[in-house]
């Protein structure tokens, strides 16, 4: 009889003794969900262009990981494994439906490597969504009309019956708040920029 023992590298870099009991394992998976679920979906949706399908793929990846969880030991490795699995399953999903990848993300067709730009981007997208939801109501409304519906300032002003100047101020404010909110996610991006 093999006793399940799981060593996990947590975000803070601490070694965390996981496993042994089913409750601990649940907590570990709960932690993975909170940390990576949304980003993984945003990652998968690049392939599927459909969020429900993306969510299904991520669900399958997690269930498969639950079944063979004992083979992966560090959280860093877990994250890479999850993204790789999502990419593979997404490609299979496309192949099964005889669809091709969105040319916008053509590079993803070959699968991904760890620390891929797109994994960071997917995380940012998940955070941006959350951050936008937290904007002050009017500010958020203006920002969504601009970014989600791609309206010009004038169109937004007309839609909301406000001045173009107000739209501009709200847009400016929105980006200021979002940048403040997403600072830690943007730092990494800057480092990558320098490398390029």
């Amino acid at each position, binding site marked *: 009889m093999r006793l399940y023992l799981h060593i996990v590298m947590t975000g803070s870099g601490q070694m965390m003794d996981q496993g042994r009991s*089913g409750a601990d394992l649940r907590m570990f998976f709960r932690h993975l969900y*909170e940390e990576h679920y949304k980003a993984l979906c945003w990652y998968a949706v690049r392939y599927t262009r459909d969020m429900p399908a993306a969510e299904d793929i991520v669900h399958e990846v997690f269930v498969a990981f639950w079944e063979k969880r004992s083979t992966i030991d560090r959280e860093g490795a877990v994250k890479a494994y999850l993204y790789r699995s999502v990419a593979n399953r997404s490609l299979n999903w496309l192949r099964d439906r005889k669809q091709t990848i969105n040319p916008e993300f053509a590079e993803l067709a070959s699968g991904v490597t760890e620390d891929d730009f797109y994994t960071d981007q997917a995380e940012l997208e998940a955070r941006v969504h959350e951050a936008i939801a937290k904007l002050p109501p009017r500010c958020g409304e203006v920002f969504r009309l601009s970014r989600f519906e791609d309206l010009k300032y004038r169109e937004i002003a007309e839609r909301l019956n406000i001045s173009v100047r107000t739209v501009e101020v709200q847009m400016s404010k929105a980006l200021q708040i979002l940048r403040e909110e997403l600072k830690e996610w943007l730092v990494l991006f800057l480092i990558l920029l320098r490398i390029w």
Partner: protein
Amino acid sequence: MTGSNTYKDIHERLVRYLAGEDSAEERSETERLIRTHETVRGYFEDIRRIWHSAAIAGRHPQPDMEAAWRKFEKATASGMISIPLWSRMWVRVAAVMLILIMSAAGVWYFRSVQHREVIVSTAPEERQTVSMPDGSLVTLNGRTTLNYPKRFTREVRHVQLEGEGFFEVTADEERPFIINAGDLKITVLGTRLNVKAYSAEKETEVTVASGRVSVTAGQKEVILNADEKAVFDRTLGSLTSTVNRDANYLAWKTRKLVFRDTSLGEIVTQLNRIYPGQEVMISDSVARCRMTATFDDLPLEQIIEVIRMTFDLEVTREADRITITGKGC
């Protein structure tokens, strides 16, 4: 770019640039700013990235993590998924059950050992001393059976006797020592006593050497002190206590016989009791002779020789029979 107004102006200019809401002139001026100022460039990259991410984010709804988690829990809770053996609840339950069953079996075994009886039986001519688990000693006369548990319980020391035995009971006020002998129940705390309870004999006797003993037969009870004896008559159902006048009640054990002005007939009866190997016969005329003597653990032959010389008698020996004859007294 030093004052907050300037900073705010640049921020608004960059946002206008991203939104494509600026004039061609402003646009090229902004591009120049981005190119030449590293700080501006860094800031611009930040908001540009947010700008594009927001556009992508706007294409799809945010996934519902909580709903997904519930779905995951449901999927992984089913037995369809292979979980390492020890993580399965039934394995743990089974293990716990197994431990409980083993413990129960262990306790049961221990208790059965505790209650397991020891039976000691003696042959007609045999004497045997048995040491009890509490340190008490029991010397068994011939044709006697003693039952006692391998371990006494915490409350009582219970033994059963059929035949004759001399008990030297270790004192333990917390645990009375109870002897069941025929119809008698003898309760002692710590004492020395002789119990004679042959089922073939009609009387059962309890004689106390030292200490204090309670003897009950049904509803009847007598309390005995040292040198007292109780006699239970099985046919009459009577239980009486008297002072013990039989100095030789323990002779079967000690082989010490004390006779004071005793008839030879009585002496021969005692000898036959104490030395069961051979039968001593005596003629009626000689049986009336009386003598005073103490025989301390002597062989039967020597005792017979002393009697013969004292009264000038004839002794004939056959296989396992000694006959004493003579003139008589």
